[in-house]
């Protein structure tokens, strides 16, 4: 099975090609093409996962020569490691769920087949990114997922906000990609290979200077910052919520944004070799976790709250990786994919019912939407770290890793972020599902093809955490090759339980008990949080405005200097043409005269040349 891993991305690619060719004719039947291809991929991925699970299973890698430049050979191929196998499983599963869900959610949309085309393209790129055995190949698919994300955010391109969000996402992630590209190039220059294995070997043998390792690791991390929406490049992710909700669930919650975390995890030995790089990763992650969570506390758009929650949880993963908690980071990536996709799908179900995203205009939806309410509650409990659900185990492991690594400040920040997480999730829950309705829509439960994926994901949100007890840590680290397992004191677990309950209780006190919705302008700290710390405004003044002015200068230069030169050459040619046309007067005698003058001049100069030379 492992040697057939290339089949996993192949099915979505076939689906993409088919939908590009026949999407228009298929109309809503396009969904079946997408679902069947994803189902095939999922089955293959499941087979790979089970085969790789065996105790004596080896990593599988297959390379083909692609280009030879001088004495360097570039390869393409695919590899299966525990991390890959896990990612393949997560991506195919979530993507499959989203494909099924979208059939209900996008029903009646004019560009229904286009949506599935883009989804297939995205899934193909993401799966290819995951199985890439070298940085160059990974970078190519890294860009391709970015392009697919751009297309899907701008899916409702007739809305100006969606257009600008798509552009913003593309440009902001591009800043990170540039760092990644430079990092990869520097590594290649120094090590002479793009392959992960070769790079790690060189690092291990000390062939690369420590300072250089730090530099490249941080550059690669900048790529991850862009893709995973970490501070300071987080601004695109909340805006990306302009895309259709299933897209938010798939790309901007479960898979693509996790690619940054995946990249750091995949190149973990490189980071591990540099203490500075690890510290940077941990600090950025920890800061993002608390920073984004605090913004999420006060937002009123249901998807934006979830988006900030995603940013915050990705920060958690980075924090874990930076604290040498490889297992914790990947574990949280795994569990988060399920419950965050679940939360987004339930949000989509709610939006589908009430046709608004403002939680102040919802309320009391629990009566009509019993399934949605139940699965949202499961997702919210899971992400809050309620004991026994998936998020609890992974968050607990993260806190332990951070504590063990000795970053005391970061540990307390993470704990406060955990309280905030529980608070904003239950603020959402109480404002959306309980109390009296504040809307006048005719609410009904979503169709079965939307609820079934949510139910499946909710089951995973409950049970995914228990893999910790079946040797997950040992397996994912290849029997301790990549990182050691961490053991922390028991009180951290109790503390994280208290944090979860504290947040939930606070949310109940403020929103659940009397279900009041505060109106009026936000003030003070609330205003600062509501406006997202004015980061967007800051960027707009400090970066966007000067660039716009610079752009106008260039435009002026182009119009008057470059354009002026063009005009000059036009004028010159015209003048020559005018003289030429005056010479052509149709008088044979004039032509003859000119010919003879030319001949005489020629003869004279030839003769003179003879005589003088």
């Amino acid at each position, binding site marked *: 099975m492992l040697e057939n891993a290339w089949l996993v991305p192949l099915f979505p690619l076939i689906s993409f090609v088919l939908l590009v060719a026949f999407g228009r004719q298929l109309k809503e039947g396009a969904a079946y093409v997408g679902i069947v291809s994803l189902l095939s991929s999922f089955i293959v991925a499941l087979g790979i996962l089970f085969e790789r699970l065996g105790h004596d299973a080896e990593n599988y890698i297959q390379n083909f020569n692609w280009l030879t430049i001088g004495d360097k050979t570039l390869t393409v191929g695919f590899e299966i490691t525990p991390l890959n196998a896990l990612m393949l499983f997560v991506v195919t599963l979530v993507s499959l769920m989203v494909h099924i869900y979208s059939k209900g959610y996008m029903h009646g949309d004019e560009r229904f087949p286009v949506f599935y085309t883009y989804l297939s393209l995205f899934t193909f790129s993401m799966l290819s990114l995951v199985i890439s055995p070298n940085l160059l190949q990974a970078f190519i698919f890294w860009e391709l997922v970015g392009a697919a994300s751009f297309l899907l955010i701008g899916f409702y391109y007739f809305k100006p906000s969606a257009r600008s969000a798509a552009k913003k996402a593309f440009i902001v992630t591009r800043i990170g990609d540039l760092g990644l590209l430079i990092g990869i190039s520097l590594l290649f220059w120094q090590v002479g290979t793009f392959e992960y294995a070769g790079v790690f070997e060189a690092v291990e043998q000390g062939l690369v200077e420590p300072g250089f390792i730090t530099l490249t690791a941080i550059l690669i991390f900048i790529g991850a910052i862009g893709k995973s929406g970490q501070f300071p490049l987080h601004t695109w992710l909340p805006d990306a919520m302009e895309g259709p909700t299933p897209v938010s669930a798939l790309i901007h919650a479960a898979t693509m944004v996790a690619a940054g975390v995946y990249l750091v995890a995949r190149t973990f030995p490189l980071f591990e070799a540099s203490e500075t790089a690890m510290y940077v990763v941990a600090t950025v992650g920890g800061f993002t976790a608390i920073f984004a969570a605090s913004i999420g506390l006060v937002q009123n758009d249901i998807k934006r709250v979830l988006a900030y929650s995603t940013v915050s949880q990705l920060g958690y993963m980075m924090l874990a990786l930076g604290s040498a908690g490889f297992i914790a980071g990947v574990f949280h990536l795994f569990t988060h994919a399920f419950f965050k996709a679940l939360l987004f799908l339930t949000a989509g179900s709610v939006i589908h019912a009430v046709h608004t995203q403002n939680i102040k205009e919802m309320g009391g939806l629990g009566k009509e939407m019993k399934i949605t309410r139940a699965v949202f509650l499961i997702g919210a409990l899971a992400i809050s770290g309620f004991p026994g659900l998936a998020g609890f185990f992974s968050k607990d492991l993260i806190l332990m890793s951070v504590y063990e690594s000795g970053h005391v400040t970061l540990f307390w920040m993470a704990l406060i972020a955990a309280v905030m997480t529980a608070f904003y999730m239950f603020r959402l829950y109480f404002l959306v599902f309980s109390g009296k309705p504040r809307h006048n829509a005719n609410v009904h439960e979503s169709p079965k093809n939307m609820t079934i994926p949510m139910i499946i994901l909710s089951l995973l949100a409950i049970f995914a955490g228990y893999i910790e007890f079946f040797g997950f840590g040992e397996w994912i680290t290849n029997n301790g090759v990549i990182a050691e397992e961490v053991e922390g004191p028991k009180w951290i677990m109790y503390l994280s339980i208290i944090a979860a309950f504290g947040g939930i209780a606070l949310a109940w006190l403020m929103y659940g008990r009397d279900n009041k919705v505060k109106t009026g302008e936000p003030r003070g700290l609330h205003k600062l949080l509501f406006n997202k710390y004015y980061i967007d405004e800051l960027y707009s003044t400090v970066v966007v405005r000067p660039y716009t002015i610079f752009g106008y200068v260039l435009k002026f230069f182009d119009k008057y200097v470059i354009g002026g030169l063009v005009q000059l050459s036009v004028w010159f040619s015209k003048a020559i043409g005018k003289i030429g046309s005056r010479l*052509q*007067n*149709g*008088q*044979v*005698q004039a032509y*003859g005269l000119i010919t*003879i003058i030319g001949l005489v001049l020629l003869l004279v100069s030839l003769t003179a040349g003879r005589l003088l030379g």
Partner: protein
Amino acid sequence: MVPLNAYLAVGAIMFSIGMFGVLNKKSGIIVLLSIELMLNAVNINLIAFSRFGFYGNITGQIFTIFTITVAAAETAVGLAILIAIFRNKGTISITDLNIMKR
């Protein structure tokens, strides 16, 4: 004995006069006559070289007879063209014949 230079000078003068006529005269007939003048200037050169040249031989004189023949034919064709033009446009003034401008 007349030297070669004298023949060549006469030839050059005749040629220049012919060329001046070709380039300057308005009437098509005069232009044809001037062309004859230029051809005959060349004939003088040919004959002079056949008599006084480094490898003087009969070829130059034979060539001259050819030239005279061709010139007669050429004049006939030229006159025919001029007549055709006159019939069409009512003039044989060279300056009025400027359709090459377009």
